[in-house]
């Protein structure tokens, strides 16, 4: 008898079918990777097991946990199960914790509720659990609040809550998607260790094949609510019997074809950053203590040429986004200067900045947050046209928007729609259309593909590479993901603690990292090919 056995599970929400005949099973001590793109029903499968589905949901089929049918269970019985025998880890560590309660209270809460232990015993147990997930009491006392912890530390607290009562089954829904690669590797290790220690079953939900390959024993691939293929991870992914499996694997390893566009050496650099520093004031600890400002960016200097594609990689909080905002003149540097096309742009007023802004555009990470929900695509994509000296007429403006939409592979009649009518990948195309409409020389892209599914990610990378070739746009790619850096850039800058610690050709830095920061990033980066090779080797 399996620990969890799902047979022929179908789920409808309202009139919409979400899952169609899903089968999967997890043994004790086994990691099952559930892979699929957004909307494939991965999270809904997890919520079905937890019986936390939204209201108008109807399920058929059977979900047996430890032999008893979950679908037929009463709510009271489910409450006993949740958090005791089945634990859950969510994607967003920022919102999965209650900001008003200390971490000790939050870990102890479940223990007290389920075991009826008194506060003192529960806290001792909570302490032990927090230590187990890597938050020792000396540095992280129980009285800490979530906002005092970083993203990775918060995710450890969430895992401590889920595992405090040694559940038989742990469901982890994209547990590392919001974290940088180094933290991701640490959290995956922790989960794997907890599985081995307690002979726990782990249902690991992810869109990232590389992550699943590193951790999961078996894999189930979902698409549109149906199981496409299931089986041993290494075998399934190397045999690629099902066409969709092949498509996913190829997309995960996709590298856009691009001619090396090394621009003219010796020409005047397009962007020249000299000694840029940014200090943020820190709130004083006491009335008389002098406050040390926090230095987010520390004497950064680099330059890039026209049509060159440069990656700026680093872990979260290393100052890369602050640097991007300073280059875009959305933030003022405390010291240092930036020259764009040979002209100094630091300290210019808005009017004097206009020509520079025209040639420098931006793409943001979140395709959902980067558009005003109340405006139509035509106005949104045309926004940078505000920078032209001569305002285009209505007809000219529509023409330019149509051209930009065509260039990113959308239709010209899409301009009459609102942003919510597009999918995530299409919205990222809209962001790119907005960025290229003024024919800029430089685009700063802040994690442009990290919120996208693998197949969409491959398409967007292709599009960006293509625009680089056709329009000669230089890119500054900000990312923590080395596969993206490798796929699309010539040079790489590695940042840590506000400083650039290593620069060089992308391929060289990634194969022979010299600095500790670069090495940590390279080692932790999930790589499907490498992970598969290792799995095959282990199994002989």
């Amino acid at each position, binding site marked *: 008898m399996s620990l969890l056995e799902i047979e022929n599970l179908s789920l409808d929400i309202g009139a919409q079918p979400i899952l169609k005949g899903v089968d999967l099973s997890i043994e004790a001590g086994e990691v099952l990777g559930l892979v699929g793109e957004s909307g494939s029903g991965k999270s809904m499968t997890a919520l079905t097991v937890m019986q936390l589905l939204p209201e108008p949901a109807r399920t058929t089929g059977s979900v047996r946990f430890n032999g008893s049918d979950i679908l037929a269970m009463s709510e009271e019985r489910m409450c006993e199960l949740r958090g005791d025998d089945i634990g859950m880890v969510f994607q967003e560590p920022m919102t999965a914790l209650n900001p008003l309660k200390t971490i000790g209270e939050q870990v102890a809460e479940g223990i007290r509720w389920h075991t009826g232990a008194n506060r003192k015993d529960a806290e001792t147990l909570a302490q032990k659990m927090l230590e187990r997930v890597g938050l020792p009491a000396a540095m992280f006392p129980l009285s800490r609040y979530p906002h005092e912890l970083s993203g990775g530390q918060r995710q450890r607290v969430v895992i401590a809550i889920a595992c405090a009562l040694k559940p038989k089954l742990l469901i982890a829904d994209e547990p590392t998607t919001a974290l940088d690669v180094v933290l991701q590797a640490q959290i995956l290790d922790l989960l794997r260790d907890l599985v081995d220690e307690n002979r726990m079953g782990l249902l690991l939900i992810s869109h990232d094949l590389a992550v699943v390959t590193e951790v999961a024993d078996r894999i189930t691939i979902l698409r549109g609510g149906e199981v496409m293929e299931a089986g041993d991870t290494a075998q399934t992914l190397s045999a690629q019997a099902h066409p969709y499996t092949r498509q996913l694997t190829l997309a995960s390893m996709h590298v856009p074809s691009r001619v090396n566009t090394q621009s003219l050496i010796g020409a005047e650099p397009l962007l020249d950053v000299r000694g840029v520093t940014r200090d943020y004031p820190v709130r004083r600890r006491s009335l008389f203590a002098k406050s040390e400002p926090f230095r987010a960016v520390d004497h950064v200097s680099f330059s890039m040429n026209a049509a060159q594609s440069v990656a700026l990689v680093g872990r979260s909080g290393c100052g890369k986004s602050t640097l991007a905002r300073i280059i875009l003149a959305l933030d003022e540097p405390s010291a240092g200067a930036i020259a764009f096309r040979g002209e100094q742009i630091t300290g210019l007023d808005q009017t004097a900045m206009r020509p520079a802004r*025209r040639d420098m555009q931006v793409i943001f990470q979140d395709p959902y947050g980067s558009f005003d929900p109340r405006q139509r695509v035509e106005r949104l994509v045309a926004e*940078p046209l505000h920078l032209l000296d001569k305002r285009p007429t209505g007809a000219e403006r529509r023409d330019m928007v149509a051209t930009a939409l065509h260039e990113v592979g959308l239709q010209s009649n899409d301009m009459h729609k609102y942003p*919510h*009518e597009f999918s995530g990948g299409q919205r990222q195309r809209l962001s790119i259309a907005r960025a290229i409409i003024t024919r800029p020389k430089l685009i700063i892209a802040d994690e442009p593909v990290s919120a996208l599914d693998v197949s969409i990610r491959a398409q967007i990378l292709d599009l960006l590479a293509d625009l680089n070739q056709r329009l000669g746009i230089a890119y500054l790619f900000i990312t923590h993901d080395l596969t993206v850096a490798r796929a699309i850039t010539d040079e790489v800058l590695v940042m840590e603690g506000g400083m650039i610690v290593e620069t060089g050709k992308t391929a060289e830095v990634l194969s022979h990292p010299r600095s500790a920061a670069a090495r940590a990033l390279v080692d932790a980066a999930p790589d499907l090919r490498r992970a598969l090779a290792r799995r095959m080797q282990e199994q002989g």
Partner: protein
Amino acid sequence: MNGPTSHATAAEAGFFARAFTNRSFVIGFCVTAIIAAMALLSFFWTPYDVTRLIVADRMQPPSSAHLLGTDQFGRDMLSMIMVGARNSIAVALVAVGIGMGLGVPLGCWAAARGGILDEVLMRFNDLVFAFPALLSAIMITAIFGPGAINAIIAIGIFNIPVFARVSRAGALALWPREFILAARAAGKGKALITVEHILPNIANLLLVQGTIQFALGILAEAGLSYLGLGAQPPMPSWGRMLFDAQTRMVVAPYLAIVPGMAIVITVLALNLIGDGISDTLDPKLRRRP
């Protein structure tokens, strides 16, 4: 659920077309429309003249001749409610207008500039908030004399910090969003961004707050005229009708019930409209089947 949808028509249909599919909006809107129509009608026609006193008909219970009965001077209650509605609506509407007209620009300005200006504006706001609104309104009308105009100004002043605060909070939540950053990267200034992006996105907050303040304005006007500080006789008003009725509660309870119900129904209808608007304008709720 985030996939592309074919709800282009739903999004493109005007706001009112969508609002009219919302039950609470429809109910609230209809009731408010009836009250507003009554108030408008009273300019041209009322069942009886509210300035004529017919003592012989005093304190008649509701009948076919006087649908809502008559008061202690024999005036027709329905006619008085109609003329009183005019007064209540005008006072509350202009007071909300004053509050929005001054409060929203102040709040948006504070949010856009930040720093010391924000601090000064908001502390001043707190200062105005610290005065109990109705008591201060009484003070203002006591100094400048009772009357509808002074009541409007008094209620209006205390609407300003409410709108300033709501619009500042809404704007502050929007400023760090990526689409605002994108607009800044497109070289738009803070004033232009406020007009193009901030205001449309806080419009739902402001509309909802506007209907709440409108309802509160009607209550405040009733309170002031109850104390004799609002519209002056012979102009009828709901608040003074309540005041006049209280000594006759036992003899003729409908004298208090009729203006009381008028106030309650109006306030309720306005709150329903507010609910309906916030449901309709919220794009997350909008696509729920």
